[in-house]
């Protein structure tokens, strides 16, 4: 099968969906003439024209708010926010408008909006580095996708554009150049269905995006020590595929969540609570988390590396859980 990068896969998904449906529009700062600050939307302006692909001002509130308005009137807007951190700049529009417009108007509207959110620590400073999925997972009305491979990025984005609900689509910047096999043609993936990336008997590790690549490395190292790690990639956090996770935990009896968001009330905290409530009897070791230790992401690399969960840290916790 052919291989393309995660970034190219997103570009292909956008192009194919815009080709398929004339109501899909794309806008954001730098997405049109420049092709996106991360080069993801290159060529789309030329192909689909300025009526459907256009630049916006640095106005995150109206970027997302207009997306809600366009969506309730029948368009399928895809908005790029450049940095996932900016969901907090557009907080009213994401959490109170996109998430609630349908609900508070008694189901009269559909909100088929996709907000693309490049995320992750790249040394861009405290306000341009985070993985703020937990805010989205916390908030009713929003769907949350966290694709980890090029194939998943393409299939989940195509699905997101077709869904009639607002999707926060996290794209990890450290994955943009990562190449994977991606099937040609119209492939989508359902939301709420995770995947076991690696099978193992001793410990279940939940990880996605950049932390998934670290978890996979850790699992390879641990294999040499006789520790078999099972790795679960949820693919979407809202909805979250707790069923597949619980089946895995039934087998391993131990669970570690590795995430790039803040630890306190993070995604891992929620997953831990799900396991306490629904799978307590299957856990024979304490639930564990590795996450950003509740400090902002600094700008320089040594400080960033200090707080990101490392392969070594993942190995250490897995050893404890497997002991």
């Amino acid at each position, binding site marked *: 099968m052919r291989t393309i990068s995660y970034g190219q896969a997103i570009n292909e998904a956008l192009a194919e969906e815009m080709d398929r449906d004339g*109501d899909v*529009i794309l806008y954001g700062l730098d997405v049109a003439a420049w092709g996106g600050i991360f080069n993801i939307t290159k060529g789309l302006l030329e192909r689909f024209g300025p*009526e459907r692909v256009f630049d*916006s*001002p640095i*106005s995150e*509130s*109206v970027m*997302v*708010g*207009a*997306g*809600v*308005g*366009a*969506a*309730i*009137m*029948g*368009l399928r*807007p895809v908005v790029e926010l450049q940095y996932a951190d900016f969901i907090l700049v557009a907080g*009213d*529009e994401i959490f*109170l*408008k996109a998430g609630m*417009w*349908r*609900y*508070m*108007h*008694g*189901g*009269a*509207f*559909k*909100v*088929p909006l996709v907000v693309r959110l490049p995320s992750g620590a790249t040394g861009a400073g405290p306000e341009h580095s985070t993985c703020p999925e937990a805010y989205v997972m916390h908030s*009713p*009305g929003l769907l949350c996708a966290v694709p980890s491979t090029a194939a998943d990025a393409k299939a989940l984005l195509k699905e997101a554009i077709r869904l*009639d*609900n607002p999707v926060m689509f996290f794209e990890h910047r450290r994955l943009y150049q990562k190449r994977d096999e991606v099937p040609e043609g119209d492939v989508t993936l359902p939301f709420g269905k995770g995947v076991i990336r690696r099978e193992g008997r001793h410990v279940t590790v939940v990880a996605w995006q950049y932390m998934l690549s670290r978890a996979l490395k850790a699992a390879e190292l641990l294999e040499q020590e006789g520790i078999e790690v099972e790795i679960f990639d949820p693919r979407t956090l809202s909805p979250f595929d707790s069923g597949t996770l619980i089946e895995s935990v039934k087998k391993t009896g131990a669970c570690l969540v590795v995430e790039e968001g803040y630890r306190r009330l993070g995604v891992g905290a929620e997953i831990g609570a799900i396991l306490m409530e629904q799978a307590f009897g299957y856990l024979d070791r304490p639930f564990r988390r590795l996450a950003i230790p509740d400090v902002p992401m600094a700008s320089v690399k040594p400080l960033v590396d200090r707080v990101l969960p490392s392969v070594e840290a993942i190995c250490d916790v897995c050893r404890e859980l497997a002991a």
Partner: protein
Amino acid sequence: MIQNDRLRDIFAKALLARSFEARLIKLTAEGFLPPLLHPGAGQEVAQIAALSALKRDDPVLYSHRGVAYMIARGTSLSAMIADMAGRAGGTNNGKGGIMHVVDLPNGIYGESGTLGGGLVVSVGMGMALRRRDPGRVVVHFFGDGASNRGTFHEALNWAAVQKLPCIYICENNGWAVSVPTSVSTAVENIADRAAGYGIPGVVVDGADPDAVMAAVANAARRARAGEGPSLIEIKATRLLGHYAADPQDYRADAASVAQRDPLAALRRRVIELGLLDEAEIEAMTAAHEAEIDLAVEAVKAAPPLDADQAFTDLYA
């Protein structure tokens, strides 16, 4: 000048809106409705005149102050009471109360509960109308308070850049809850800010339905012709408190403001013009009260909403 039959219609609807709102306040005092209504008394004439200049299928994002927008478009009275009362037969299944009335066949597209939150939504509505249904315009009503949200700047700027078919109507009643514009706002006229977006900004007297209608008709003509958005500031009169039971002890003119009631002025005018006489207005008021009685009875006879409605309408 507005034609006589149109002026009579604006008066009749404003009179109904005033009576209906008074009933909602009475039902609130009686405990049948929750105290969540923000009265629009004093602002009905301008609200209805503004909508009289538009077509029924021009979408409206309304402001939280009052019910006259919905009266202007013909939304069911009983549905609005049911929305407040939590009874079956409302427009939003108990989710939005009176703040989120939705009536798509009549062009009522609801409201943002965060004031000024609708400004940015209306931009996307304009984008969609231009692409899918050119010739329609979206009108967004908001107050002077909401005009101090950052959304005002972002929305008007981007709507202007894109020349979207949007009409922005600021009802400046001088008060953001208890804070007067003298404390909150650096300019005399909100409409002066239009210059910063390169769009027309006009000020009209909220007691002058001719001026309001003419301004909105002009903005609609521009918008339909692809010339972009306009900002209209209505100098409005808030007769009552921010909410129905607001004691308004922050307000020096609370007692005297009734003398500036635009509906009373319009009443005098329709009488002077010979469009209606006192007896006819009394008969009209009695007919409105009877219509409201029927609506209230219908809601009181309707079952309470199933509490499990809390779980519906979230995802499509």
